Protein backbone atom coordinates (compact mmCIF):
# COMPACT_ATOMS: atom_id res chain seq x y z
CA UNK A 1 0.00 0.00 0.00
CA UNK A 2 1.28 3.45 -0.94
CA UNK A 3 0.15 6.71 0.64
CA UNK A 4 -0.23 9.72 -1.60
CA UNK A 5 -0.88 12.97 0.23
CA UNK A 6 -2.31 16.03 -1.44
CA UNK A 7 -3.45 19.40 -0.06
CA UNK A 8 -6.75 17.82 0.98
CA UNK A 9 -5.63 14.69 2.83
CA UNK A 10 -3.68 11.42 2.66
CA UNK A 11 -4.97 8.71 0.30
CA UNK A 12 -4.15 5.01 0.50
CA UNK A 13 -3.70 3.67 -3.02
CA UNK A 14 -2.22 0.65 -4.68
CA UNK A 15 0.68 1.94 -6.74
CA UNK A 16 3.72 0.62 -8.50
CA UNK A 17 7.14 2.27 -8.27
CA UNK A 18 9.67 1.13 -10.82
CA UNK A 19 12.41 2.75 -12.91
CA UNK A 20 12.00 5.96 -10.88
CA UNK A 21 8.35 6.25 -11.89
CA UNK A 22 5.23 6.02 -9.76
CA UNK A 23 2.26 4.43 -11.52
CA UNK A 24 -1.27 4.65 -10.10
CA UNK A 25 -4.68 3.43 -11.22
CA UNK A 26 -6.80 5.85 -13.19
CA UNK A 27 -9.42 6.27 -10.43
CA UNK A 28 -6.76 6.94 -7.81
CA UNK A 29 -5.03 9.33 -10.19
CA UNK A 30 -8.19 11.38 -10.41
CA UNK A 31 -8.57 11.48 -6.63
CA UNK A 32 -5.00 12.47 -5.80
CA UNK A 33 -4.40 14.91 -8.67
CA UNK A 34 -7.86 16.42 -9.18
CA UNK A 35 -7.31 15.89 -12.93
CA UNK A 36 -9.10 13.48 -15.26
CA UNK A 37 -7.66 11.92 -18.39
CA UNK A 38 -9.65 13.16 -21.41
CA UNK A 39 -9.05 12.93 -25.16
CA UNK A 40 -7.65 16.52 -24.92
CA UNK A 41 -5.16 15.55 -22.21
CA UNK A 42 -5.16 15.96 -18.43
CA UNK A 43 -8.12 18.17 -17.51
CA UNK A 44 -9.31 19.97 -14.42
CA UNK A 45 -12.36 22.15 -15.00
CA UNK A 46 -11.80 24.03 -18.25
CA UNK A 47 -8.06 23.70 -17.96
CA UNK A 48 -6.56 20.92 -20.14
CA UNK A 49 -2.88 20.11 -20.48
CA UNK A 50 -2.31 18.10 -23.66
CA UNK A 51 -0.09 15.04 -23.69
CA UNK A 52 2.73 15.70 -26.18
CA UNK A 53 2.16 13.90 -29.54
CA UNK A 54 3.28 10.26 -29.68
CA UNK A 55 4.06 10.17 -25.96
CA UNK A 56 0.89 8.45 -24.74
CA UNK A 57 2.82 5.34 -23.72
CA UNK A 58 4.98 7.43 -21.38
CA UNK A 59 1.88 8.55 -19.50
CA UNK A 60 -0.63 5.73 -19.88
CA UNK A 61 -0.34 1.97 -19.59
CA UNK A 62 -3.71 0.20 -19.86
CA UNK A 63 -5.52 1.33 -16.70
CA UNK A 64 -2.56 3.02 -15.03
CA UNK A 65 -1.14 6.53 -15.20
CA UNK A 66 2.45 7.60 -14.69
CA UNK A 67 2.15 10.11 -11.85
CA UNK A 68 5.83 11.05 -12.09
CA UNK A 69 5.47 12.01 -15.77
CA UNK A 70 2.19 13.81 -15.03
CA UNK A 71 3.90 15.85 -12.30
CA UNK A 72 6.72 16.83 -14.67
CA UNK A 73 4.34 17.73 -17.49
CA UNK A 74 2.16 19.91 -15.28
CA UNK A 75 5.02 21.38 -13.19
CA UNK A 76 3.57 19.87 -9.99
CA UNK A 77 5.97 19.07 -7.12
CA UNK A 78 5.98 15.33 -6.32
CA UNK A 79 8.24 14.16 -3.50
CA UNK A 80 8.64 10.90 -1.60
CA UNK A 81 9.94 9.48 1.66
CA UNK A 82 13.09 7.33 1.66
CA UNK A 83 11.03 4.14 1.55
CA UNK A 84 8.91 5.45 -1.40
CA UNK A 85 5.86 4.41 0.61
CA UNK A 86 4.70 8.00 1.15
CA UNK A 87 4.39 10.68 -1.49
CA UNK A 88 3.21 14.27 -1.53
CA UNK A 89 1.73 15.71 -4.72
CA UNK A 90 1.21 19.47 -4.68
CA UNK A 91 -0.78 21.75 -6.94
CA UNK A 92 0.96 22.76 -10.15
CA UNK A 93 3.36 25.68 -9.67
CA UNK A 94 1.88 27.31 -12.79
CA UNK A 95 -1.64 26.98 -11.41
CA UNK A 96 -0.52 28.41 -8.06
CA UNK A 97 1.09 31.40 -9.74
CA UNK A 98 -1.82 32.07 -12.09
CA UNK A 99 -4.29 31.77 -9.24
CA UNK A 100 -2.70 34.55 -7.20
CA UNK A 101 -2.18 36.81 -10.18
CA UNK A 102 -5.91 36.51 -10.95
CA UNK A 103 -6.41 38.27 -7.57
CA UNK A 104 -9.28 35.90 -6.75
CA UNK A 105 -8.65 35.08 -3.09
CA UNK A 106 -8.17 31.29 -2.99
CA UNK A 107 -10.73 29.56 -0.79
CA UNK A 108 -9.83 27.21 2.08
CA UNK A 109 -11.56 25.42 4.95
CA UNK A 110 -10.03 25.12 8.40
CA UNK A 111 -11.26 24.28 11.90
CA UNK A 112 -11.38 26.64 14.86
CA UNK A 113 -10.35 25.48 18.36
CA UNK A 114 -13.69 23.73 18.87
CA UNK A 115 -13.29 21.83 15.60
CA UNK A 116 -15.98 23.81 13.77
CA UNK A 117 -15.04 24.28 10.11
CA UNK A 118 -14.91 27.74 8.53
CA UNK A 119 -14.35 28.52 4.86
CA UNK A 120 -13.14 31.82 3.55
CA UNK A 121 -16.15 31.73 1.22
CA UNK A 122 -18.51 31.64 4.25
CA UNK A 123 -17.60 35.30 4.70
CA UNK A 124 -18.04 36.39 1.07
CA UNK A 125 -19.68 39.81 0.83
CA UNK A 126 -17.62 41.23 3.70
CA UNK A 127 -14.29 42.97 3.67
CA UNK A 128 -11.86 40.44 5.10
CA UNK A 129 -8.54 40.95 6.84
CA UNK A 130 -6.89 37.53 6.55
CA UNK A 131 -4.01 37.49 9.00
CA UNK A 132 -1.49 34.83 9.96
CA UNK A 133 0.05 34.29 13.40
CA UNK A 134 1.75 31.51 15.36
CA UNK A 135 2.93 30.66 18.86
CA UNK A 136 6.46 29.90 17.71
Amino acid sequence: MTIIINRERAHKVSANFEDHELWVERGDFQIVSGFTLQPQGFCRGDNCIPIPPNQEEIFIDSDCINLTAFAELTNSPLVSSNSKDEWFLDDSIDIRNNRLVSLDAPDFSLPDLSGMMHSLSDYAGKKILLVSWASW
Partner: protein
Amino acid sequence: MWQTLYAELKDSNFIVIAVALESRGNEAASEWIEQANPEYPCLIDVDHNVAALYNMINVPQAVWIDERGKIVRPTETAGATEGFRKMNLKTFTMPDAEMQKARQTRQLYLDAIRDWVSNGEQSEHIYSPEQARGRVPGLSNDAAMADAWFRLGLYLYADERETEGLALMYKASDLHPESWSIWRQTADLEAVGKSMGAEFWARVEALGEKHYYAPIDMKGIPE
Protein backbone atom coordinates in the same frame (compact mmCIF):
# COMPACT_ATOMS: atom_id res chain seq x y z
CA MET B 1 -4.50 43.86 18.50
CA TRP B 2 -7.14 42.60 16.06
CA GLN B 3 -9.98 42.18 18.59
CA THR B 4 -10.15 45.93 19.31
CA LEU B 5 -10.21 46.69 15.59
CA TYR B 6 -12.79 44.01 14.93
CA ALA B 7 -15.06 45.20 17.75
CA GLU B 8 -14.89 48.70 16.32
CA LEU B 9 -15.59 47.72 12.70
CA LYS B 10 -17.71 44.57 12.86
CA ASP B 11 -20.93 46.45 12.12
CA SER B 12 -19.35 47.88 8.96
CA ASN B 13 -19.36 44.64 6.98
CA PHE B 14 -15.81 43.81 8.05
CA ILE B 15 -14.31 40.66 9.52
CA VAL B 16 -10.93 39.48 10.69
CA ILE B 17 -10.01 35.87 9.96
CA ALA B 18 -6.94 34.83 11.92
CA VAL B 19 -5.07 31.73 10.83
CA ALA B 20 -2.62 30.10 13.22
CA LEU B 21 0.16 28.37 11.22
CA GLU B 22 0.57 25.84 13.95
CA SER B 23 1.58 22.24 13.30
CA ARG B 24 1.25 21.40 16.99
CA GLY B 25 -2.38 22.42 16.62
CA ASN B 26 -4.69 23.33 19.48
CA GLU B 27 -2.08 22.34 22.05
CA ALA B 28 0.11 25.25 20.93
CA ALA B 29 -2.58 27.73 19.86
CA SER B 30 -5.29 27.45 22.52
CA GLU B 31 -3.56 29.39 25.28
CA TRP B 32 -2.98 32.36 22.98
CA ILE B 33 -6.49 32.33 21.58
CA GLU B 34 -8.09 32.07 25.01
CA GLN B 35 -6.01 35.00 26.20
CA ALA B 36 -6.98 37.19 23.22
CA ASN B 37 -10.59 36.04 23.58
CA PRO B 38 -11.50 37.04 20.04
CA GLU B 39 -15.01 37.27 18.60
CA TYR B 40 -13.72 36.72 15.06
CA PRO B 41 -12.79 33.27 13.68
CA CYS B 42 -9.41 31.96 14.79
CA LEU B 43 -8.55 28.99 12.61
CA ILE B 44 -5.88 26.37 13.12
CA ASP B 45 -3.80 25.47 10.06
CA VAL B 46 -1.61 22.51 11.06
CA ASP B 47 -0.45 21.98 7.48
CA HIS B 48 0.34 25.65 6.70
CA ASN B 49 -2.02 25.41 3.74
CA VAL B 50 -2.97 29.09 3.88
CA ALA B 51 0.72 30.03 3.81
CA ALA B 52 1.08 27.98 0.60
CA LEU B 53 -2.09 29.46 -0.93
CA TYR B 54 -1.07 33.06 -0.28
CA ASN B 55 2.74 32.72 -0.48
CA MET B 56 3.19 33.72 3.15
CA ILE B 57 6.68 33.33 4.61
CA ASN B 58 6.36 34.76 8.11
CA VAL B 59 3.89 35.84 10.78
CA PRO B 60 2.14 38.16 11.08
CA GLN B 61 1.33 38.66 7.42
CA ALA B 62 -2.02 39.80 6.08
CA VAL B 63 -4.08 39.97 2.91
CA TRP B 64 -6.94 42.38 2.32
CA ILE B 65 -9.89 40.81 0.48
CA ASP B 66 -12.83 42.88 -0.71
CA GLU B 67 -16.56 42.05 -0.75
CA ARG B 68 -16.23 40.35 -4.15
CA GLY B 69 -13.47 38.04 -2.96
CA LYS B 70 -10.77 40.03 -4.77
CA ILE B 71 -7.36 40.63 -3.23
CA VAL B 72 -6.87 44.40 -2.90
CA ARG B 73 -3.66 44.20 -0.87
CA PRO B 74 -1.63 41.01 -1.41
CA THR B 75 0.37 39.29 1.34
CA GLU B 76 2.43 41.78 3.34
CA THR B 77 3.70 42.38 6.85
CA ALA B 78 0.65 42.95 9.07
CA GLY B 79 1.62 46.15 10.84
CA ALA B 80 4.73 44.68 12.50
CA THR B 81 8.23 46.15 12.64
CA GLU B 82 11.54 44.43 13.22
CA GLY B 83 12.65 46.50 16.19
CA PHE B 84 13.29 43.29 18.11
CA ARG B 85 16.50 43.01 16.10
CA LYS B 86 17.82 45.97 18.10
CA MET B 87 16.73 44.46 21.40
CA ASN B 88 19.22 44.36 24.22
CA LEU B 89 19.41 40.64 24.88
CA LYS B 90 20.59 41.15 28.46
CA THR B 91 17.74 43.41 29.56
CA PHE B 92 15.21 42.38 26.87
CA THR B 93 14.43 46.04 26.22
CA MET B 94 14.16 47.86 22.92
CA PRO B 95 15.52 51.33 22.18
CA ASP B 96 12.88 54.08 22.55
CA ALA B 97 13.17 55.01 18.88
CA GLU B 98 12.28 51.45 17.87
CA MET B 99 9.36 51.36 20.28
CA GLN B 100 8.06 54.57 18.80
CA LYS B 101 8.50 53.30 15.26
CA ALA B 102 6.59 50.12 16.16
CA ARG B 103 3.71 52.14 17.64
CA GLN B 104 3.57 54.49 14.63
CA THR B 105 3.64 51.68 12.10
CA ARG B 106 0.95 49.75 13.88
CA GLN B 107 -1.23 52.86 14.19
CA LEU B 108 -0.84 53.71 10.49
CA TYR B 109 -1.64 50.15 9.46
CA LEU B 110 -4.77 50.01 11.63
CA ASP B 111 -5.87 53.46 10.41
CA ALA B 112 -5.40 52.28 6.83
CA ILE B 113 -7.74 49.35 7.49
CA ARG B 114 -10.29 51.74 9.02
CA ASP B 115 -10.01 53.96 5.95
CA TRP B 116 -10.54 50.98 3.63
CA VAL B 117 -13.57 49.81 5.61
CA SER B 118 -15.10 53.33 5.45
CA ASN B 119 -14.19 54.26 1.90
CA GLY B 120 -13.88 50.97 0.02
CA GLU B 121 -12.58 51.42 -3.49
CA GLN B 122 -12.00 55.11 -2.84
CA SER B 123 -9.49 54.33 -0.09
CA GLU B 124 -5.97 55.44 -0.96
CA HIS B 125 -4.71 52.28 0.71
CA ILE B 126 -6.00 49.75 -1.77
CA TYR B 127 -4.29 48.91 -5.02
CA SER B 128 -5.62 48.88 -8.54
CA PRO B 129 -5.74 45.33 -9.95
CA GLU B 130 -2.59 46.06 -11.95
CA GLN B 131 -0.72 47.36 -8.89
CA ALA B 132 -1.96 44.43 -6.79
CA ARG B 133 -0.82 41.90 -9.39
CA GLY B 134 2.62 43.48 -9.36
CA ARG B 135 2.80 43.03 -5.59
CA VAL B 136 1.77 39.39 -5.39
CA PRO B 137 4.79 37.65 -3.87
CA GLY B 138 6.35 35.38 -6.49
CA LEU B 139 6.66 31.62 -6.07
CA SER B 140 9.99 30.24 -7.25
CA ASN B 141 10.37 26.57 -8.18
CA ASP B 142 12.56 26.09 -5.11
CA ALA B 143 9.95 27.66 -2.85
CA ALA B 144 7.26 25.40 -4.32
CA MET B 145 9.47 22.33 -3.85
CA ALA B 146 10.12 23.50 -0.29
CA ASP B 147 6.36 23.55 0.39
CA ALA B 148 6.13 19.95 -0.86
CA TRP B 149 9.05 18.66 1.25
CA PHE B 150 7.74 20.54 4.27
CA ARG B 151 4.31 19.00 3.88
CA LEU B 152 5.66 15.46 3.45
CA GLY B 153 7.91 16.03 6.46
CA LEU B 154 4.91 17.10 8.55
CA TYR B 155 3.08 13.94 7.55
CA LEU B 156 6.00 11.69 8.54
CA TYR B 157 6.50 13.64 11.77
CA ALA B 158 2.85 13.15 12.72
CA ASP B 159 3.20 9.47 11.79
CA GLU B 160 5.85 9.06 14.53
CA ARG B 161 8.80 9.22 12.16
CA GLU B 162 10.14 12.40 13.74
CA THR B 163 13.73 12.07 12.51
CA GLU B 164 12.93 11.62 8.83
CA GLY B 165 10.11 14.17 9.05
CA LEU B 166 12.31 16.88 10.60
CA ALA B 167 15.07 16.13 8.07
CA LEU B 168 12.66 16.76 5.18
CA MET B 169 11.36 19.94 6.82
CA TYR B 170 14.89 21.29 7.29
CA LYS B 171 15.58 20.36 3.66
CA ALA B 172 12.54 22.51 2.81
CA SER B 173 14.01 25.36 4.84
CA ASP B 174 17.33 25.06 2.97
CA LEU B 175 15.46 25.27 -0.34
CA HIS B 176 13.48 28.32 0.78
CA PRO B 177 15.57 30.08 3.43
CA GLU B 178 13.45 33.25 3.16
CA SER B 179 10.55 31.38 4.76
CA TRP B 180 10.74 31.99 8.48
CA SER B 181 7.51 30.02 8.90
CA ILE B 182 9.14 26.86 7.59
CA TRP B 183 12.31 27.17 9.67
CA ARG B 184 10.62 28.32 12.87
CA GLN B 185 7.84 25.74 12.70
CA THR B 186 10.39 22.98 12.11
CA ALA B 187 12.56 24.18 14.99
CA ASP B 188 9.46 24.37 17.21
CA LEU B 189 8.55 20.78 16.39
CA GLU B 190 12.09 19.63 17.05
CA ALA B 191 12.10 21.27 20.49
CA VAL B 192 9.69 23.84 21.90
CA GLY B 193 11.66 27.07 22.39
CA LYS B 194 14.22 26.35 19.65
CA SER B 195 12.36 28.62 17.23
CA MET B 196 13.30 31.62 19.38
CA GLY B 197 16.59 30.36 20.76
CA ALA B 198 20.24 30.99 19.94
CA GLU B 199 19.96 29.58 16.41
CA PHE B 200 17.06 31.93 15.65
CA TRP B 201 19.10 34.95 16.75
CA ALA B 202 22.07 33.76 14.71
CA ARG B 203 19.83 33.49 11.65
CA VAL B 204 18.42 36.96 12.23
CA GLU B 205 21.96 38.32 12.67
CA ALA B 206 22.97 36.64 9.39
CA LEU B 207 20.29 38.66 7.56
CA GLY B 208 22.62 41.65 7.74
CA GLU B 209 21.00 44.42 5.69
CA LYS B 210 18.09 42.23 4.63
CA HIS B 211 14.71 42.53 6.30
CA TYR B 212 13.07 40.10 8.68
CA TYR B 213 9.74 41.83 8.03
CA ALA B 214 9.54 43.51 4.63
CA PRO B 215 8.55 47.16 5.16
CA ILE B 216 4.89 47.89 4.50
CA ASP B 217 4.30 49.83 1.30
CA MET B 218 2.12 52.55 2.77
CA LYS B 219 2.39 56.34 2.93
CA GLY B 220 3.85 57.58 6.21
CA ILE B 221 5.34 54.27 7.39
CA PRO B 222 8.59 55.24 9.16
CA GLU B 223 11.80 54.08 7.48
